[in-house]
């Protein structure tokens, strides 16, 4: 029985092959639609869910449910209102005394004290903890000891943070920064309970915070079940029984689940579905401005683009882009043509103003004249660069190029350089290797005009990828930061923005909206300025 022996060996090898992979999966099933529970689409957060290590929307969603900080941005107006802070006092815009409200605690019944904040902030700034958002603490005295540019840190705490009593602590900043308290609504400034430090791995598996929800279960890469915390002491209690976040492999898949009734909320309507969305969802489709702007940044470090007189060419290119048509045809109005370098989500009071004017208005004849009068584009060529793995970047770059080429009428002057992954693009960008205009997206961390200008255009600023430098602009920003009257400060920021219009270091393209769709089961769905759904206000029928 030769064959039988063969079969036995084959079975043996099969067993080896299976042993390597065979083992059961198995956790709880993920069917949507439990009573009072909202099911919502989610993406796997990029980094561990530490407040100071989360800088993207997916992790931000969870933190918004789990944490409340000193201030919170009103989801409608964007105004920073006191949450845990009773008052934040200062006489010189540099030294602040923060007093906490009574009665706040974490969901494990530990009270939220001044120490909870100071420990969390020291942890965030400590370079040994590798927190992405560490630079947010750079304004505090003693940051450099904890976060040196190289080498081991000299200290374990920042000397600028001092706990006075369980309800009070003081903060010393390196320089005057009048709007600093307004930045405290950002999630990186959240307090942390003791268990975060004593049992870090355990905390990451089941985070504990002081927000309106608690984590019921968390399966990494699959989903998270959050439940209403009945003992939540804050004013913005959850209006639903809980939220089930489900990780989707693709936003198209999530959308399919929404229209087939297996999911309540999708906060990212895929571009391919935008033409159907009105039919599919009607008034259950939300499309509103967020704090995101897309620009084309010029490599001013490259002499071809940076030399004096080139600002006319840069302005001319801006006038050659038909923003209205592109936002309508490609983005189906989920983008709004840009008129300045901030975002309409700031509101007029927050500093949003049509600063760009004619320079952001499509006028091919004027564009052609401006570019030709200034000597034409460098080398007769423009190459636009962006990553093309998300966000229809390929499509709009083609459209922008067509628009420029049509305006100039000199054949294919503008071409597109697509980069496969965001990481690769980011590396080329931060190595200052690009020699043509490149995409820059900016999502503000807090609804302040300062955040749209200083990190991007101040000399040597962290995200100033085009190496724009203008002494007048820097001076206005410094003055604005020292100005204690917020209306006057915003005026100064707007003056600084006018310099951007004159110099055009980057072309404002459009403001990105947040979009979402929801099922008939739920109501009162809104997005905040960060295009994150305001989960605690959602009602389930």
């Amino acid at each position: 029985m030769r064959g039988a022996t063969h079969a036995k060996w084959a079975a043996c090898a099969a067993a080896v092959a299976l042993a390597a992979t065979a083992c059961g999966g198995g956790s709880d099933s993920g069917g949507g639609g439990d009573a009072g529970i909202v099911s919502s689409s989610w993406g796997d957060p990029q980094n561990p869910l530490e407040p100071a290590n989360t800088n993207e929307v997916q992790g931000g969603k969870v933190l918004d449910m789990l944490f409340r900080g000193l201030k919170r941005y009103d989801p409608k107006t964007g105004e920073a209102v006191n949450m845990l802070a009773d008052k934040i006092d200062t006489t010189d815009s540099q030294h602040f005394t923060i007093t906490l409200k009574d009665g706040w605690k974490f969901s494990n019944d530990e009270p939220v004290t001044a120490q909870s904040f100071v420990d969390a902030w020291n942890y965030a700034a400590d370079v040994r903890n590798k927190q992405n958002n560490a630079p947010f603490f750079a304004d505090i005295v003693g940051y450099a000891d904890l976060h040196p540019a190289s080498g081991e840190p000299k200290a374990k705490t920042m000397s600028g943070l001092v706990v006075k009593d369980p309800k009070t602590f003081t903060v010393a900043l390196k320089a005057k920064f009048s709007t600093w308290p307004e930045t405290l609504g950002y999630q990186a400034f959240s307090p942390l309970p003791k268990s975060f430090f004593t049992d870090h791995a355990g905390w990451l598996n089941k985070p504990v915070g002081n927000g309106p929800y608690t984590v019921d279960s968390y399966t990494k890469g699959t989903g998270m079940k959050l439940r209403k915390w009945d003992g939540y002491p804050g004013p913005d209690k959850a209006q639903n029984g809980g939220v089930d976040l489900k990780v989707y492999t693709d936003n198209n898949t999530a959308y399919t689940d929404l229209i087939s009734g297996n999911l309540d909320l999708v906060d990212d309507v895929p571009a391919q579905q935008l033409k159907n969305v009105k039919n599919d969802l009607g008034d259950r489709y939300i499309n509103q401005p967020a704090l995101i702007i897309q620009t084309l940044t010029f490599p001013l470090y490259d002499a071809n683009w940076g030399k004096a007189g080139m600002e006319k060419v840069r302005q001319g290119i801006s006038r050659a882009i038909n923003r209205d048509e592109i936002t309508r045809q490609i983005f189906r109005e989920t983008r709004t043509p840009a008129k300045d370098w901030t975002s309409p989500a700031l509101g007029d009071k927050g500093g949003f103003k049509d600063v760009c004017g004619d320079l952001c208005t499509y006028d091919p004849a004027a564009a052609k004249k401006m570019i030709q009068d200034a000597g034409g584009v460098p080398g007769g060529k423009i190459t636009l660069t962006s990553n093309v793995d998300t966000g229809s970047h390929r499509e709009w770059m083609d459209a922008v190029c067509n628009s420029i080429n049509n305006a100039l009428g000199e054949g294919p002057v503008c071409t597109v350089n697509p980069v496969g992954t965001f990481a690769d693009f980011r590396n080329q960008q931060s190595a200052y290797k690009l020699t043509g205009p490149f995409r820059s997206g900016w999502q503000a961390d807090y609804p302040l005009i300062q955040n749209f200008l200083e990190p991007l255009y101040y000399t040597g600023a962290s995200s100033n990828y085009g190496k724009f430098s203008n002494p007048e602009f820097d001076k206005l920003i410094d003055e604005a930061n020292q100005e204690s009257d917020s209306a006057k400060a915003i005026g100064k920021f707007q003056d600084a923005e006018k310099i951007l219009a004159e110099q055009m270091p980057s072309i404002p393209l459009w403001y990105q909206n947040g979009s979402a769709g929801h099922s008939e089961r739920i109501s009162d769905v809104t997005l905040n300025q960060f295009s994150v759904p305001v989960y605690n206000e959602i009602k389930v029928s």
Partner: protein
Amino acid sequence: MGRYVIRRLLQMIPVFIGSTFLIFFMVYALGDPVAALFGDKAPDPATAARIRKDLYLDQPLWKQYVHYMGQIFQGDFGTAFNGQSVTDLMATAFPVTLRLTIVAVVIEVVVGITLGVVSGLRRGKSVDTSLLVLTLIVISVPTFVTGYLLQYLFGVKWGWVRPTVSPDAPFNELILPGIVLALVSLAYVTRLSRTSIAENVKADYVRTAVAKGLPRRRVVTRHLLRNSLIPVVTFIGTDIGALMGGAIVTERIFNIHGVGYQLYQGILRNNSPTVVGFVTILVIVFLLANLLVDLLYAVLDPRIRYA
């Protein structure tokens, strides 16, 4: 026979080392992953340097590789950027994809071979021609089209099944994705077995078997089919590896958190430990599947012997 298997298993070692090095090298060539971790913001240099040091990215490539291989032999495949160990990711992803692959292979084998036999025995008849046309259509339609189409029809329009698969991914939910995944290969299996059957049906041993007066059923299953399966088995064997790693499109459409999805995420985020770890396992699967195929030859055709 036993010796043969051992020799083959030993041969896998250099293949394994060589392929992991190539993969490692290619992922490394994609560039520095740390910059992308910071989103729109510029990376803070001190923090980025720390992360690089912890991930061993500040070392030259060959040192990174030696370090990585050393870890692998201790059963540690490294850590993905979100803090999960790659072994954890594998433990959740591979069983799901394995189930999907089993569903797909079963469909391929049962339907594909049946259709192949039917059309092979009726060569030139209308059944044969229409099956050929049908397989041609299936081969030329890309997976994402059939995927979205079937998902829309069965999941959304008629509501017979859930359009997406739950995290547990039990067998019954994997039937539709399995069909989508199997369709293209199924067409190949049909064509291969049809040709093979059509050739062998004229062979001497078939004529002898018929002349002996054996029932037609027995002639077809025992004599004809068994001898005709060798090319089909070869195809299915290599296809198992392709299905396990290449289900990216299907897994995304049906929200299956399997190997393809993890690989896709790993590549998008330049996450080398995930990509290298998963591909390494896939290499092993490929090697073992090939070994199985070779051993099955001997089972199917007694003339083939391994010493």
